[in-house]
């Protein structure tokens, strides 16, 4: 336990000291908020509410904001896993690997570090809520934070997997960029994923971000208050094998995914010979 906290704390201290990283990672979500929330919101609303009678009830920005927070979680947590490669590059991984700390603690510590960093970044985005003219219930914002941590942990696991077989930070960034953007687009973060062609639908349903985004939206947006058509428009009726999934099942899925990636990451640290 001590070892997990030590590894977690080290990554956190380093994140807080690195001001460029702290603010640099905001440019992407803000850019997306500007483009999708500002520039495209009218178009998106028209497109999404075509042939539907939802009147003024549908607000695209309210739909896209949890998606962009999820996107930030994905990007920050996956990129935070790059610290594993940096530690290999700068030799610190040796110091960790020759110590008696258990390999599973290394994996959990690294994952917790990435999850914390991404949660902090996600929560910082909440500061934009009043500026965007949005209105979320304070309680639902507080309730979503533990889930953000879980999602960050799960997604950082993807980063850890890549970091275990990629040895250069450049290679890691390249691969991650190739992987991350499709994961964002195929998740319902930016537009509803209902009515996708069959093969894309398979990708969407396999993508863990899909369930993360769905839970984020369901917690942040007061779903029960919305009319059925608006929920349909927002794509909040996610079905797998023709059955509508519950928030509980989705969280269970993400939890299982997290445990799986921890197991794989532990194995990779066991094999590691830095």
């Amino acid at each position: 336990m001590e070892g997990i906290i030590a590894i977690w704390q080290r990554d956190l201290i380093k994140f807080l000291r690195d001001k460029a990283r702290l603010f640099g990672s905001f440019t992407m979500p803000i850019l997306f908020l500007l483009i999708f929330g500002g520039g495209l919101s009218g178009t998106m609303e028209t497109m999404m509410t075509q042939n539907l009678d939802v009147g003024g009830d549908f607000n695209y920005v309210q739909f896209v904001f949890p998606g962009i927070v999820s996107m930030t979680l994905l990007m920050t947590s996956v990129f935070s896993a790059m610290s594993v490669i940096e530690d290999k590059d700068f030799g610190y991984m040796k110091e960790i690997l020759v110590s008696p700390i258990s390999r599973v603690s290394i994996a959990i510590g690294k994952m917790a570090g990435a999850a914390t960093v991404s949660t902090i970044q996600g929560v910082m985005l909440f500061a934009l809520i009043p500026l965007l003219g949005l209105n979320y219930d304070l309680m639902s914002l507080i309730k979503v934070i533990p889930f953000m941590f879980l999602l960050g942990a799960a997604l950082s696991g993807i980063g850890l997997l890549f970091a275990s077989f990629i040895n250069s930070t450049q290679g890691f960034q390249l691969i991650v960029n190739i992987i991350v953007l499709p994961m964002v687009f195929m998740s319902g973060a930016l537009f509803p994923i209902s009515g996708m062609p069959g093969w894309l639908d398979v990708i969407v349903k396999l993508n863990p971000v899909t369930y993360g985004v769905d839970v984020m939206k369901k917690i942040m947006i007061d779903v029960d208050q919305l009319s059925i058509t608006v929920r349909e428009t927002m794509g909040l009726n996610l079905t797998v094998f023709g059955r509508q999934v519950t928030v509980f099942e989705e969280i269970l899925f993400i939890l299982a995914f997290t445990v799986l990636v921890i197991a794989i990451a532990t194995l990779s640290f066991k094999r590691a010979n830095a």
Partner: protein
Amino acid sequence: MNSVIEVTDLVKTYKNVDAVKGINFDVKEGEIFGFLGPNGAGKSTTINMICTMLPPTSGHITINGYDVAKQKDDVRGSIGIIFQENTLDEKLTANENLMLHCRFYNVPKDKRHERIQEVLHIVDLIDEQNQRVEEFSGGMKRRLEIARGLLHYPKVLFLDEPTVGLDPNTRAHLWKYILKLKEQEGITMFLTTHYLDEAEVSDRIAIMDQGEIIAIDSPTVLKDELGGDLIELSTEDNDQAIQEIEDKVTGADVTVNGDTIHLKVHSSDAFISNFIKTLDIPITTLNIRKPTLNDVFLAYTGRHIQTNDE
């Protein structure tokens, strides 16, 4: 004396290369054990296996009574390693680096502060402890790494090229600290170095070449075994000089190394005056000396140890 490290029939085979071919040795408690060999001799492979970082193909290693294959965590807790390359976190302060180490090695919470101050005192970094490591000089970083390696009171401290890349002044300073450690703490040290003069501090030296240990003894014995003195000379025409030596001189072992002829003789005092008279070719340089570890190394491996950092 008890053995802290026991290596038995250790073998490491990569796909088609035998990196380590069944070596045996032990390291006694409290000694400085020098581990020398040319690049590619299998030194690093051996050390990695001893430090639990690489599984052996076969053979057996115990450290401090623990089996390296089965009791990895106990072994890891018993050893401290100063790696050849820097493994400090430069973005953190010296103190933070040490504190992390305490936590990785489960140093009891109430002892951490005291121990950190203790090791910082040994390496004279008390006043710099709250500076970030990136502001440190190469020598300071090295000292900090040594301090860190001591924090959990290891039974054996591995020093892998501890002074590589440092200027001679800093090297000398660092050795002062290392020897002080040996005196004060009686800690066992396992040393690899390219600087053979530094290996002189070892109580015993093992020379490894092509996956095997070809000599193991104290530096004095190793040098004495070479026998006698060394005469190095160069002449205006070395080929002709060698011919003359072969014809007229007895009681000398002749080898050629670049531009110089090496003669190994039992006693240079009795040999030299006659020898100079015998030789017709004019001698341009002449040097008589006792054997050094470098000569030992050369005699066993047929190579000079490489002094570059590669």
